[in-house]
């Protein structure tokens, strides 16, 4: 029949991909600007608590992180489920905290040292006993500025529900 067109006549023209690098570079630059380097490999699971009165940590270079929570599933057969502290890339005990703070302070420029902030990134199920021990060690190490890392809740009502 005459109505059916012959397909062979029209080969599809190749899609012009010359602008593809531009698009990808644009994405690349976006990610380079908007993200920060991952500091450590988290070995403890940290589900941060929620809070509304939170402030942004301004200068990243002044912030030192202390992680606390129960070890992740793959470390549980070795370290158990009790909440532990993680400093840099390794599990640590409470006695390691003071030398760690001193070492971190030494690594910073002299004029920045008083402004050093310790950010406590702890899971919300961690017991306060551990956090109190951390706080006591920080006081001994004269690191007084701390920050309880928390998330902005989606709505204020969620803050008061019992499950978080």
């Amino acid at each position: 029949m005459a109505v059916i067109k012959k397909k062979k006549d029209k080969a599809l023209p190749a899609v012009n991909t010359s602008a593809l690098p531009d698009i990808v570079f644009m994405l690349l630059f976006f990610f380079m600007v908007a993200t920060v380097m991952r500091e450590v490999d988290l070995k403890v699971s940290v589900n941060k608590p929620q809070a509304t009165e939170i402030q942004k940590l301004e200068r990243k270079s002044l912030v030192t992180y202390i992680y606390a929570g129960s070890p992740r599933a793959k470390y549980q057969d070795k370290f158990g489920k009790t909440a532990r502290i993680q400093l840099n890339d390794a599990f640590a005990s409470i006695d390691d905290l003071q030398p760690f703070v001193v070492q971190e302070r030494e690594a910073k420029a002299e004029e920045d040292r008083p402004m050093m902030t310790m950010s406590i990134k702890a899971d919300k199920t961690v017991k306060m006993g551990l956090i109190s021990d951390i706080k006591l060690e920080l006081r001994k190490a004269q690191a007084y500025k701390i920050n309880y890392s928390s998330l902005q809740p989606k709505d204020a009502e969620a803050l008061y529900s019992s499950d978080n």
Partner: protein
Amino acid sequence: MARNKRAIPEINAGSMADIAFLLLIFYLVTTTMDTDKGINRKLPPIEDELVQEPPPIKERNIFTVLVNSNDQLLVEDEYLKINQLRAKAMEFIDNNGDGSCEYCKGYGVSSSSDNPVKAVISLQNDRGTSYGMYVKVQNELVAAYEDLRERYAEDEYGRSYRGMNPKEDKEIIKEIKNAYQQKISEAEPLNIGG
């Protein structure tokens, strides 16, 4: 002269996209988006031995908040829910029992604080309290102060305290902070239900 006539071959840019993708994926994997936010606090320095006895604080000027190992709140000998804590704390700070605070709108109850400068919030938790609950309580107490400062800023300057620029409005912020000074004292945790 023959040299000039030779056309420069065009550089093949076909693999440019591949290189860019490679870089992009590298950045996607090694970086994180999360911004660091949290409640800023300041720890008290350790004093080896008290040089002198701390000045006595009247019972009415202390607002005690206790949290037990079951994450229950006891505020001023009264069982409270976490969503009632903010209002209760604001009522206490803003009480203005001795009438010296001109901007306060409290009821002047004789069993509550004299004025915001004298009012101290005392927080004590158990070693078994969950960190989530602790942050929630801290958050409510800080929020109580922030709400009062917000109201003060609205009344005195007709502006929002939270919306102020920390650089431009340095003096105003200082004054507002002085009007409602944050005084939260933390006691050593108990170990009852550890």
